[in-house]
């Protein structure tokens, strides 16, 4: 009996579909080499696991802690980021701990976006930004990164070759623009924004707009590139929420802890959402992340700091993956940061007309590759709006934060690609 009262609320109308629902279960088949969903299959650092084991043994740490963030953790965050931002961060007023970077994005949207607000989102974007803006009643305004003419050869493209058109960006801002969301390093392309940040900052200041800066991959930046926090540019601290993630920092995505850092007058609104949605995050996990951060704080700048050593480890995997994809005939976009790589499959000329024409090419390619090659990836058009599908439908996204045996298995598949 379908009671109309059992229907969904307006705020979630149309938000039930999700790319992960489609692809995660498929890739769970152990015979498939999974380079799809973004999580490591390498273990987290041992001191982080040990920290959790120790925390779980303390009675008090199995009970509720401070709602806006466990004291050990917020104090550690204020230390680490105080150094990075080169400013005093109030652990209780300028930091909020959330359920992953995802939870920070949600708290930010719910706190600061409402009907009548426009939010600028750069394509390709981590897919949750659009539904979250919509759920908050806002209107997403999209602008794509565009591949500029590359000075390198056709087989050597970098995420730095994907840029924003400045005039196009400026045209997206108007009096209704509440915020712009930026993600650096970017998922899925891996672009690390630097020079563009000033232009974005200028527009935010000119139009009195907020900036939501998703920096969950901030430590994963490769040689020759530098992560810059837009909140440190003049005039930006007061209008920026910066989001970080323990899951990405310590390779513990299953801990689901993240944080928002910003000025008190903005963070307090995120705190209001937090206290009315889930109130507090798990205690022992926060204690362990706090202890891990304190340990790495002492080593910051040194090679055995996990923030540095992980990036070094991943650079090797990045280069290995790019080489294997090139060998097959794909054109990888070598990322400056993050742990994803997109690759152009045009040159493979794979005929997929037998799969119908109701889906973009990359969706079909990914499904075909899972079935025929037992290799899982994610279609990049999942990260763009309808108008940009044509621009991105020849790209697939692969995750390279995988152990060597997984990469070996992927390599074996890619090497024998043309032998069928």
């Amino acid at each position, binding site marked *: 009996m379908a009671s109309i*009262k*059992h*229907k*969904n*609320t307006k705020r*979630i109308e149309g*938000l*039930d579909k*999700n790319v*992960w*629902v489609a692809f995660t279960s498929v890739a769970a088949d152990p015979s498939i080499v999974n380079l799809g969903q973004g*999580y*490591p*299959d*390498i*273990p*987290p650092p041992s001191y982080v*696991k040990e920290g*959790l*084991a120790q925390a*779980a*043994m303390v*009675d*008090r740490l*199995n*009970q509720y802690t*401070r*709602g806006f963030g466990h004291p050990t953790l917020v104090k550690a965050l204020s230390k680490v980021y105080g150094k990075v931002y080169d400013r005093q961060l109030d652990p209780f007023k300028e930091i909020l701990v959330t*359920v*992953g970077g*995802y939870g920070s994005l*949600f708290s930010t949207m*719910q*706190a*600061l976006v409402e009907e009548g607000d426009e939010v600028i989102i750069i394509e390709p974007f981590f897919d*949750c930004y659009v*539904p*979250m803006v919509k759920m908050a009643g806002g209107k997403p305004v999209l602008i794509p990164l565009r591949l500029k003419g590359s000075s390198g050869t056709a087989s050597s493209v970098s995420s730095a070759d994907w840029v924003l058109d400045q005039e196009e960006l400026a045209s997206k801002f108007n009096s209704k623009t509440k915020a712009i969301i930026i993600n650096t390093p970017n998922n899925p392309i891996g672009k690390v924004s630097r020079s563009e940040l000033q232009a974005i900052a200028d527009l935010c200041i000119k139009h*009195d707009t*907020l900036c939501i800066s998703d920096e969950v991959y901030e430590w994963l930046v490769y040689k020759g590139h530098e992560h810059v926090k837009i909140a440190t540019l003049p005039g930006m601290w*007061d209008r920026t929420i910066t989001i970080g993630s323990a899951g990405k920092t310590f390779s513990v*995505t*299953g*801990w*689901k802890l993240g944080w928002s850092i910003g000025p008190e*007058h*903005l963070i*307090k*609104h995120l705190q*209001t*959402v937090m*206290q*009315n*949605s*889930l109130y507090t*995050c*798990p*205690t*022992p*996990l926060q204690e362990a992340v706090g202890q891990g951060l304190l340990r790495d704080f002492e080593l910051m700048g040194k090679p055995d700091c996990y923030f540095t050593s992980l990036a070094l480890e991943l650079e090797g995997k990045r280069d290995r993956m790019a080489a294997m994809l090139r060998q097959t005939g794909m054109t990888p976009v070598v990322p400056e940061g993050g742990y994803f790589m997109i690759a152009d499959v045009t040159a493979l000329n794979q005929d997929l007309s037998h799969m119908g024409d109701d889906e973009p090419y990359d969706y079909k390619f990914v499904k075909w590759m899972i079935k025929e090659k037992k290799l899982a990836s994610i279609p990049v058009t999942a990260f763009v709006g309808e108008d940009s599908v044509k621009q991105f439908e020849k790209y697939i996204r692969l995750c390279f934060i995988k152990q060597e045996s997984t990469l070996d298995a992927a390599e074996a598949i890619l090497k024998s690609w043309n032998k069928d």
Partner: protein
Amino acid sequence: MSRKLHARRIEGIDKNIWVELTQLAADYKAVNLGQGFPDFSPPSFVQEAFCKALNEGFSMHQYTRAFGHPNLVKILAKFFSRIVGREIDPMEDILVSVGAYQALFCTFQALIDEGDEVIIVEPFFDCYQPMVMMAGGTAIYVPLKPVCCGPVLSSADWVLSPEELASKFSPRTKAIVINTPNNPLGKVYKRKELQMIAELCIKHDVICISDEVYEWLTYDGTKHVKIASLPGMWERTVTIGSAGKTFSATGWKVGWAMGSEHILKHLKTVHQNSVYHCATAAQEAVAVGFQREYDVFGTEESYFHQLPIHLHEKRLRLADCLKSVGLKPILPQGGYFMIGLATIPVSAFYSPEHRNEFQKYIRFCFVKEDSTLQAAEDILRQWSDGKLKKF
């Protein structure tokens, strides 16, 4: 920035009693019988399960299934199917959340639109009202009241007036929230009380949100009844549970919502657009805990059997202590709390309309180590003996 920044949905919901009082308790090093959490440890089998989980393969530290870790939803379905008396589908009828708190949030966000009315029974766990507000709904209150005759010494003596309750239902009523065992009163609704509520829900086609986080904590042989198990109610009830309260591990923040797929799917949509996943290792540990309890259910070994016995004594002890200093405790039939004196003022649990009637009652949490209860007793005795400075 010059413009107004915050969204309207958070207006009027920024104040929170726990934030204030937890800070005060910490500042003054008070013996804390305020906020509801145990000061003893979770049972060893569950702590061990957690340690074991975090030493297992890499997958325990990475994302699990968004709507609930498979091991957990499977055992929850098995466990509660046996209690509710119907086949519960682990993948369709259950959503795991970050504590029962987030399950409540998903429920209100999924089902309450602007203009919808939600009936809330007072006294209520304080978050129901701001959550209804944030979803754009209107809270309609109906108070539990002590029956006028007889000694008012048990939570069982606090009842709803059937006529008053019926009068609160209107064509705009979307849902009613009940909490049994109730926080702060400790009332455990009898089957016939739930029957009365169920009849109104069916008559007015209203959803029942049943917060049952204290379901295992009932005393003096009182039976917890699930409203979802009454005829006509499974298809219109969202039942909320908590691993934190079940296993005395409030800091793990693992909870769930259970109900018919056609309603749960909307909660899942909210969940996937707000937190998406819950922490993996804690879910695995809770799953192991429930499997163990499934195997020993109804026996002396069961934690669900032992914990209420353990707390029964603490409840009586606190009641005696309050009586001896001249206060009138209301003995709870269930839950963690007793109304009497000293920590969280109970008027926070009432609507502005009814607050004045309940200002002289205060709530006490007795789920504490004996040493904590002893310390509280000492303070109260000194106070009543006039030895403490009067403020």
